C-alpha cells in the first residue's frame, strides 16, 4: 500500500516538475499582451457530479486565479477555489461510505498550474487557446449523519451527527481560450478534468469492513468510512469542470 502511495506522490511531483520546469528555461523577458504579463481572473465553475446518478444542478466553484506569462508560450499561475454546497448523486452502495449521509460539504482548493498557449494564428501568452496542467490541494469540510451498527448489520436510520476535515490532492489537465477585450479585460472560457488521488487510494483496498467493531479497529474503520464518504462526492464533483472567467491583464 505504501508503494502505491509513493507512486502517486511521484506522479504528482513529475507533473509539477514538468509543468514548472518551463519557467527555469525562460531566459528572456516574455512579451505578454502588449507588455502586460499578469492576468487576474474570477472564474465561475460549473461541475456536474459524475456519480451513479447525474443531477441537473451543477456544483458551483468560485475561483480566483492569477497567472504570469513567463514566455511567449507559457504562463505560470496559482488559484484559490471553493464551493459551499454539494449537488451530486445520493448513493447507497456497498462500501463503507454508505453508512454516512452527507449533510453539507464545503471544499477549499489551492492550486498551482501552467498554461501552455497555442502559437497558431498569432496568439501569444496570455491570450489565445491554451492547455493547462497543474494540481490542487483540497481541504474538505463535511457534516454527516451516520448509521450505528456494522457494515453487514447496520441500523436503517442515520441517527448520529458528525463532522470532519479531510484532504485530497488532485492533478488536473484542461484547455480553454483567453480573449482580450479593450486591451485590458480578459474573458476566459475553459474546462478542466481533475483526478483527486487520495479518494482513489482510499477506495482501493478499503472496500469492505465494519464501522463499529471492537477496540481501535472500529474507530479506524469509522474514520475511514467517514473520509470515503467525504472524498467520494468531492471526486465526482471535480471530474469535469466548465469555467467562464472575467478579469484583467496588467
Amino acid at each position: 500500500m505504501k508503494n502505491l502511495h509513493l507512486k502517486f506522490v511521484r506522479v504528482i511531483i513529475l507533473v509539477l516538475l514538468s509543468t514548472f520546469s518551463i519557467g527555469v528555461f525562460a531566459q528572456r523577458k516574455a512579451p505578454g499582451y502588449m507588455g502586460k504579463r499578469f492576468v487576474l481572473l474570477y472564474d465561475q465553475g460549473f461541475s456536474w457530479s459524475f456519480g451513479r446518478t447525474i443531477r441537473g444542478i451543477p456544483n458551483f466553484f468560485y475561483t480566483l486565479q492569477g497567472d504570469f506569462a513567463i514566455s511567449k508560450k507559457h504562463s505560470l499561475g496559482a488559484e484559490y477555489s471553493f464551493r459551499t454546497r454539494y449537488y451530486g448523486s445520493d448513493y447507497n452502495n456497498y462500501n463503507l461510505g454508505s453508512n454516512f449521509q452527507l449533510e453539507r460539504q464545503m471544499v477549499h482548493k489551492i492550486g498551482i498550474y501552467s498554461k501552455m498557449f497555442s502559437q497558431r494564428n498569432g496568439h501569444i501568452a496570455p491570450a489565445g487557446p491554451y492547455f493547462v496542467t497543474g494540481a490542487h490541494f483540497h481541504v474538505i469540510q463535511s457534516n454527516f449523519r451516520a448509521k450505528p451498527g456494522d457494515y453487514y448489520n447496520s441500523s436503517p436510520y442515520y441517527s448520529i451527527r458528525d463532522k470532519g476535515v479531510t484532504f485530497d490532492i488532485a492533478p488536473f489537465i484542461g484547455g480553454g481560450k483567453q480573449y482580450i477585450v479593450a486591451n485590458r479585460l480578459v474573458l476566459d472560457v475553459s474546462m478542466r478534468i481533475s483526478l483527486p488521488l487520495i479518494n482513489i487510494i482510499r477506495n482501493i483496498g478499503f472496500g469492505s469492513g465494519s464501522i463499529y467493531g471492537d477496540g481501535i479497529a472500529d474507530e479506524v474503520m469509522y474514520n475511514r468510512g467517514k473520509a470515503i464518504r467525504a472524498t467520494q462526492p468531492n471526486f465526482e464533483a471535480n471530474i469535469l469542470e466548465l469555467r467562464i472567467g472575467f478579469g484583467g491583464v496588467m
Partner: protein
Amino acid sequence: MKTHIITLVLLQLCLASAIAQGFENYQPVRSTGRLPEDFTRAVADAARSSAADIPGKKSQEDKDFLLSSAFSLNRIMLGGKVLFNDPMAIFTNKVADELLKNHPELRARVRIYIIKSPYVNAFATSDGAIFINIGLLAQLENEAQLAYILAHEIVHVEKKHILDEYKKQTEISKGKGVYRDLNNSEKLLARSAYSKEKEQEADELGFLDYYERSGYSYSAIAGVFDILKYGHLPIDEIPFDKSFFENPGFSFPVSYKLADLASINTDDEEEDEESSHPALPFRREILEKMIKTRSGEGKKDYVVGEADFTYIRNMARFELCRLQLLDEDYNNAIYNSYVLLKEFPDNQYLLKIIGNALYWISFNNDNLGKSFYKNVEGESQQLAHLLYKLSSKQRDIDMVNVAFATKLKVMFPNDKEVDILLRQSVKHMVESHQISDKDLSEAYMNSMKIDTVTQAKPEVVEPEKKEEEGKKSKYKKIADSKTNTKTIASGDPSDSLNFYKYTVAAYMGTTRIKTIFKEEAAKYEEAESVRKSVKLNKSSKGGLDYKYGKAAGPVDKIIVVDPYYFGMTVGKDKKVKYLKNEQEEKDMVNRIEECGKAAGVQTDIIEPKLFSENDVAKYNEMVVLDEWLSERMLSDTRILENTPQTPVTSLGTNEIQKIIETHGTEYAMWTVSLFEQRNRKRGGLIVGMILLPPLIPIFIHRVINGGSVSHFMALAFNLENGELKLSHQKTIWDNNYGYIKNSNIYFVFHQLKQVDKAQ
C-alpha cells in the same frame, strides 16, 4: 490665386536652375512644392468630387466605379512612384497648357503626373489625372510626340472613357442585353472590341480636337507609334565595345564578342483580337491619313522649347537607368547608361548605376538565366552576350565587378557610395572565392611583366561614319538596319586564359585600394574564426531562440514606412471594401503607435494617408525609403537571410543619411497586413450542430468568425548597413480580432527592443 502665381514662379525658377545645373552631379529627381490635393484627399471625398462631374442620377454601378477608381488613384498617388512639380512634370504640364489653351475648364480638371516606371506607357483616370511613365519620356524623339500622346489621354478624360468601359465591362460580364448568350471567349472579344473603339476615338479626337489646334507640327508625330513598337529596346542603338569593362591590366578573350547580333524585328504585329488597343499599323495608318491632308505651315516640333525638352528627356533617361536597375533589368540599365556616357563622359551617377548593376549580377548570378542574351535584339545584345559569358563562371563576373568598382574608386575617391560598393564587392569576392589581397598583389607583380593578358583587336570605326551614325535617332537606325545585316568576324578563342586573376591587377599598386582589399580580407578572416568557434561551442544558439524568435535589439526608435493594409472578400462575391480599407490603415497606424509605446520603442510613422499639403518632405522620405527597400530586395530570396553575404545597398546613401539624421535613428520598418473574408459554406456547420449539440458554442464561434484569413508581415532593417534586423510573418485563420493584431505588432517591437544575452 496669389499663392498659385508665386508657386508657379518658384517652380519656373526651379526648372531654370535645374537646366543650368546640368548632369555632372546628378541626383535622383524628387517632387517639390506642395502636395497636390490628389495626395491628401480621402477616398470618399475623391469619389464624391468625381460624382459631381457626372450629370444626372448615379446608378449603383457608377457609385461602385467611382469608389474603386478613387481608391486606385489614391494607391497610385501614395505608392511613392509619382512625381509632381519636378522638371519633367512641369514641362509636361506646359505642353498640356498649349494643347488646352482654348479649353480652360478642361485644363483645370486635367492634372499631369510622372510615374517612375521604366515601361513605355501613359494612362488617364476618369477624374482627370493623367500619368506619363518615365520610360515613355525617355524614348521620345521630340516635344510634339509628347503633345500627341497627351492629346490622346485628354480625350480619355474628356469623354469619360474609363467610366464607359467599366460600365460596358460590367454589362458584358453580367451578360446583360445583347451579351446574354455569349460564352467567356466571346465576352472577352466583346470587351476588347469596345476598348479598341475607345482607343481609336482617342487617337482621332486627340488629333482633331487638341493637337491640330495647337502649334505642334504634323510631320513630327509621324513616327509616334514606333515609340510603342520599340519601347522594349534601349534609348539608342550604338555598338557596345567590351573594352568599356577592360583596364590596362586585362582584356576579355576575343570570343567574348558575339559574331552575329540578332537584328531587331521590324515586322508589324498582327491584329490581336483580345488586345485592348488596335494594332499599331492600323493606328499609324489613320494618323498618317490625317497628317497627309493637312498643311503644317507655321507649326513647330517644339513649342515649349527644344533645350527644355532635351533636358527633361535626358533627366528621364538618367532616371530610366536607375529604374531598370531596380527592376532587375540589368542589361538595359548598363546599356542605357553606356549610351548616355557617350554624351556625358565619366558621369558619376551613370557609372555608379553600371557598378551597382554589375554588383547585383555578380550577387544574384542565377537571376540572369541561361542564354538570356539570345532574347535580346540589336546592339545591346553584345553587352548581354558579354554578361552571359562572364556569368557562366561566378568567379569571372565577381572579379570583373570588383575591377569596375575599383576603377570607380580610383575615379571618385571621396564618393561614399562608391566606397560602399567597392567594399561590398570585395567582401563578396573574398567570401565566395577566398581570394586574398596577396593573390591579387602577385597578379599585379606578374602583370607588370606583360602589358596586357590578352590583346583584343579594337574594332575600328571610321570617324565620319561614327559621326553620321551618332546624329541618327534610334528609330531611324532601326529602320536602316532592315537593309544592313551586321556581321562581326569572330576572333580566336582563348577562353582558357584565366584573365580573372588580372582584372584588378592594374589597381593593386595603389595603396588606398590595397588597403581596402586588406581590410575586407581581415574582416572575413575574423568573421570566419568567430563562425568556427560558434560551431565548436554547440550549446550556443548564436542568438537564435526558437521560443522567442530572434532578439533584434536594442532599437529605441524606428521609422515605420507606409503601414499597408488591404482587405477584400473573395469567393463568388469578390469585393473590396474601399472605405473600410482606408479606415483599417489608419487604425493600423494607431495600433503601431500604441504597441511601440508599450514596448518602449519610439516610432516615427510615415503614413501617406495622413499627409497634408505641406508634407512634401515626408513624401520624399517615403519615396527614398521605398527605393532603398526595392534595392535591398534585389538580393532576392536572401532578403530574409543574414548570411555573411548580406548585401548593403549603395545608391541613395546620401539621402538615406539625411533621413537617419532627421529622425535620429538608423532603423526602418515596413509592415503589410492583408485580409481575406471568405464565404464559408455554413451547411456543414449546421449539420455539425445537430449531430453534436454539446459543441454548439464552438460551431457558433465558427459561424461568426469563420472563413477569414489575415496575413501580417513586418521587415525591419538597419539603413546604415542593410542588415535585416527582424522578419516577422504570421497567418491568422478565423481570428480577425484586434487583440491578436496588437499582440503581433507588439511582439515585433518587443523583439526589436530585446537584446540577445548571447551577444
